[in-house]
């Protein structure tokens, strides 16, 4: 079975394998990781069919390019010896125009070294002529070095050729997904907000949802829709809701105004994929049935820049929620006015996370996915922080995917619905957080702890609000 070399980004290492596995699952083809060390600049994989390479090229945002592997060795002598024994590999391309490109990881070529490398392959006996601009065949020689810090030119020169592995292959193509990260950068987006997710993470998340043509993907905390553009770009229909319509719409309202999110969608040519945007509180949702959403993708607000909210009143407010409508002086009901906004209270992250999993259990189709970011205090994170819900299971490779910011990080959680039935719409009741006091998840009360720079929790006097009062809501 054919082996391929993937030139992969050294960023977001913990997202690498999950994203490749998700691509293989989206398009239902097997992939096997052959490299012993799977976290270097090159990853060797085995695919059952040649056509499957295209899926990796179309969807791999961490992939730079893919080549068919011809030989790999620790030294050039060994590499040349292997290639000399396989002239058949080149028969098909012998009369084609070609070029040989030397590349490297953790290393930059200087001087005449690249030319010497190219010349050392003269024995390949390629007769089609060299063509640097648009060759019919593009061979790559790839030297993979260890990362090391050097300070002098002499040290730099001494590194030449001291790579760990050298690969030789025929380049099949450059990733078509990776340039999307730049094309859809928030910097050039027609509409964005102060909490918009960077495009690269959006695409990595979209891959985890198994997004593709004909699927419906829903974001219950849509905000400015960062994740939805990525899902729609991968061909899925998307739907978003938010308690604050202004997030989705932007400042302007009125005739002939296109909501901000649709302007950005139109910029990326995916406006027709946006099924609908709705304003509602996800805990008081008008959705009438479950079992029809293929994936839920979301980056719930965790209070540092914006806090999650739900309809209700803080327990510190003197009056409880009204039982009857408020009548204005002119005899009309306040809530029938277009400017009416109900009172909101903070939505504590611990409650929100559990509710999100319960909602996914209800709305998703069997084997549908829930993909979301969970902020955690790095030192306190524990696997039990992920709510356990019957009918949902966490999918995790190794220790999971984490974006590490030092004292805190955000963890990309991927869950799958294992239940076959729809079940009941969750009740969205507040948990008794006091009863969790000694096993509070590391994302509890995240915003306050962020501002306190993650000082350890004071266990003797657990300062635990019952309804998430202190979840920051700046």
């Amino acid at each position: 079975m054919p082996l391929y070399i993937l030139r992969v980004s050294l960023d977001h290492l913990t997202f690498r394998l999950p994203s490749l596995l998700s691509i293989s699952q989206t398009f239902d083809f097997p992939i096997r990781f052959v490299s012993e060390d799977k976290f270097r600049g090159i990853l060797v994989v085995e695919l059952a069919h040649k056509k499957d390479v295209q899926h990796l090229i179309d969807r791999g945002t961490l992939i730079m390019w893919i080549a068919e592997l011809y030989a790999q060795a620790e030294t050039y002598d060994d590499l040349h010896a292997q290639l000399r024994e396989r002239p058949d590999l080149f028969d098909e391309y012998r009369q084609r125009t070609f070029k040989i490109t030397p590349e490297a990881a953790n290393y930059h070529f200087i001087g005449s070294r690249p030319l010497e490398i190219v010349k050392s392959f003269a024995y390949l006996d390629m007769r089609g002529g060299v063509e640097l601009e648009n060759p019919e065949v593009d061979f790559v020689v790839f030297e993979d070095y260890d990362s090391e810090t050097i300070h002098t030119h002499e040290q730099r020169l001494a590194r030449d050729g001291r790579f760990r592995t050298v690969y030789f292959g025929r380049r099949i193509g450059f990733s078509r997904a990776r340039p999307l990260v730049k094309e859809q950068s928030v910097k050039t987006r027609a509409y964005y907000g102060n909490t918009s997710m960077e495009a690269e993470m959006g695409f990595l998340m979209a891959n985890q949802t198994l997004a593709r043509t004909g699927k419906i993907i829903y974001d219950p905390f849509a905000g400015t829709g960062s994740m939805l553009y990525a899902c729609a770009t991968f061909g899925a229909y998307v739907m978003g809701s938010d308690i604050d319509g202004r997030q989705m719409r932007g400042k302007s309202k009125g005739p002939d105004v296109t909501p901000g999110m649709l302007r950005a969608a139109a910029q990326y040519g995916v406006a027709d994929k946006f099924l609908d945007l709705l304003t509602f509180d996800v805990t008081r949702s008008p959705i009438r049935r479950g079992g029809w959403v293929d994936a839920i993708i979301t980056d719930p607000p965790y209070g540092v820049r914006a806090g999650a909210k739900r309809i209700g009143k803080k327990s510190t407010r003197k009056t409880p929620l009204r039982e009857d409508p408020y009548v204005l002086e002119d005899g009309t009901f306040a809530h029938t006015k277009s400017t009416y906004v109900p009172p909101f209270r903070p939505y504590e992250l611990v409650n929100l996370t559990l509710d999100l999993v319960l909602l996914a259990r209800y709305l998703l189709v069997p084997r549908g996915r829930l993909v979301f970011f969970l902020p955690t205090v790095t030192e306190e994170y524990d696997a039990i922080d992920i709510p356990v819900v019957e009918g949902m299971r966490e999918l995790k490779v190794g220790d999971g995917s984490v974006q590490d910011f030092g004292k805190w990080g955000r963890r990309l959680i991927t869950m799958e619905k294992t239940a076959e039935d729809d079940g009941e719409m969750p009740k969205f009741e507040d948990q008794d957080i006091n009863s969790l006091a000694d096993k509070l998840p590391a994302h509890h009360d995240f915003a306050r702890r962020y501002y306190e720079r993650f000082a350890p929790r004071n266990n003797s006097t657990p300062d635990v609000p019952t309804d998430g009062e202190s979840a920051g809501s700046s």
Partner: protein
Amino acid sequence: MVRLITHNMLACHVRNCNKDNFPLIFSEVELVIRETPENLDFIRRFLPKLDWTALVDTARSLGDTTLPDEQPVEMTDDQLRALHHVLMEMHVEEGNMTCRGCGHVYPISNGIPNMLLAEHEVGR
């Protein structure tokens, strides 16, 4: 937006409103037809999730009479195309959705419906 595919998934959710709360009735609508690439496989797969009667009634209230009263057991491609048009291409951009049960009005502006409940309407 507010396409009928979404509309078919929405019911009034005011506290204690559980009779005649679906489908929501459109009024004062500004309807826009936007052609959308067909994906008949998607329509076929989504079919079991739909409430057919509600869909047909709503489509007729918006002036589209292409759907039959009874849901066909086997859909022909032409019928699927008609369904695609109703579900995906009819956008209510402005107007109201009203609950037949409790009379709550959900206004739609710029294609985005406001389905936030008032404080006396949320469940406790």
